[in-house]
């Protein structure tokens, strides 16, 4: 446990220090959402209607932005070799790295959501519903994205391949995240899509670390 805690602490610390890139995701999220009213015009009803989709797409793109560094940085400096050799099972080490990535890059997106909701003319109920779906849904984005990040390392290809690999995998998360948010705003049943979103997150917690570890184990050379 100390080994995994040390890994999480190290990755969060690196992400929060200068050049770590944790803030880049939030700034990108902010920029995308701020640009939307300029592109769509000052129609408040339209912004409210599109609000959940805009926030979810912004969060999805922002979480993709920093994901390629998840294993690449460790691969470039040789840390990944030592992590693969270590006594900690690689699956758990992958899960610890994904958790650290979510704490540094995913959680700030959730925290920024209430402020961005104001820009899209969303009321308190809608904003908290979207915030809740993002809180439950962004870990799924990180844990499925981890598979793409591991493949990108082993195939020696960077960011763009990652986006192509990961975006299709995030479609279900996006569908149910936006559906739950809109259900809460429109007064429909929030429970069903939200439960499915939770289930998707739980599935990604199981599949993501195993798939990423398998890819790393067979792909390193």
């Amino acid at each position: 446990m100390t080994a995994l805690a040390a890994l999480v602490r190290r990755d969060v610390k690196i992400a929060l220090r200068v050049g770590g890139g944790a803030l880049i995701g939030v700034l990108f999220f902010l920029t995308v959402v701020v640009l939307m009213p300029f592109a769509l015009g000052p129609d408040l009803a339209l912004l409210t209607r599109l609000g959940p989709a805009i926030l979810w797409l912004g969060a999805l793109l922002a979480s993709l932005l920093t994901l390629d560094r998840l294993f690449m940085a460790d691969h470039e400096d040789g840390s990944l070799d030592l992590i693969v050799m270590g006594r900690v099972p690689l699956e758990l080490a992958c899960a610890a790295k994904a958790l650290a990535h979510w704490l540094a890059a995913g959680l700030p997106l959730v925290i920024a959501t209430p402020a961005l909701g104001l820009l899209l003319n969303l009321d308190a109920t809608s904003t908290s519903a979207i915030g809740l779906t993002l809180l439950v849904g962004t870990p799924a984005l990180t844990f499925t994205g981890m598979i793409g990040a591991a493949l990108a390392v082993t195939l020696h290809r960077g960011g763009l391949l990652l986006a192509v690999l990961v975006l299709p995998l995030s479609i279900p998360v996006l569908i149910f995240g936006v559906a739950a948010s809109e259900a809460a705003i429109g007064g429909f049943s929030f429970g069903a899509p939200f439960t499915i979103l939770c289930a998707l997150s739980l599935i990604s917690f199981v599949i993501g670390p195993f798939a990423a570890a398998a890819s790393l184990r067979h792909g390193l050379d």
Partner: protein
Amino acid sequence: MRLSGRGIRCMRGGRDVFSGLDFETCAGEALAVVGTNGSGKTSLLRMIAGLLAPAAGSIALEGGDVELTLPEQAHYVAHRDALKPALSVIENLLFWQKFLGGDASDAKGCLATVGLDHAIHLPAAYLSAGQRRRLSIARLLTVRRPIWLLDEPTNALDRAGQSMFAALMIDHLARGGLIVAATHMPLGIITRELPIGSAS
């Protein structure tokens, strides 16, 4: 403890680098893997470290800890030194100490041994190549592992650093450790040579 390889074949990019390689080394012995550039020295070390699968043949360890695999009992010092520029010297070392686990010794004492005690709180980004190598060597000391896999370990070290490291290797061998090193330069200790590639 005995580390041995039988009929190892290494293929990189569809090309045979070496094949039919046999080696054997025992506790208290240092094996120097020598050969020209591209002869497969690093590949052999990575095979022993479990990071690269041999195309044929096998590598076995006898007399080690039966609960642990060969890579779990080995330290690997490679060209890339597994240091994070954003973290300080001591943070880098303490992370590896906690992550690698096992018998840990005093991190500050290890840094003093390798001559980095004046730079404990300096971010690793400001270290020179030689200092980075010294920090990698401190990792060997902070967690005890019986097998050291070293890839050009003395490359960036100054003369004082080389004799410091030679003393550490002699101490490691005296404790019943085992060293496999890929090198072009003499390590300053008694080694048995294993020529590979075109030289074999």
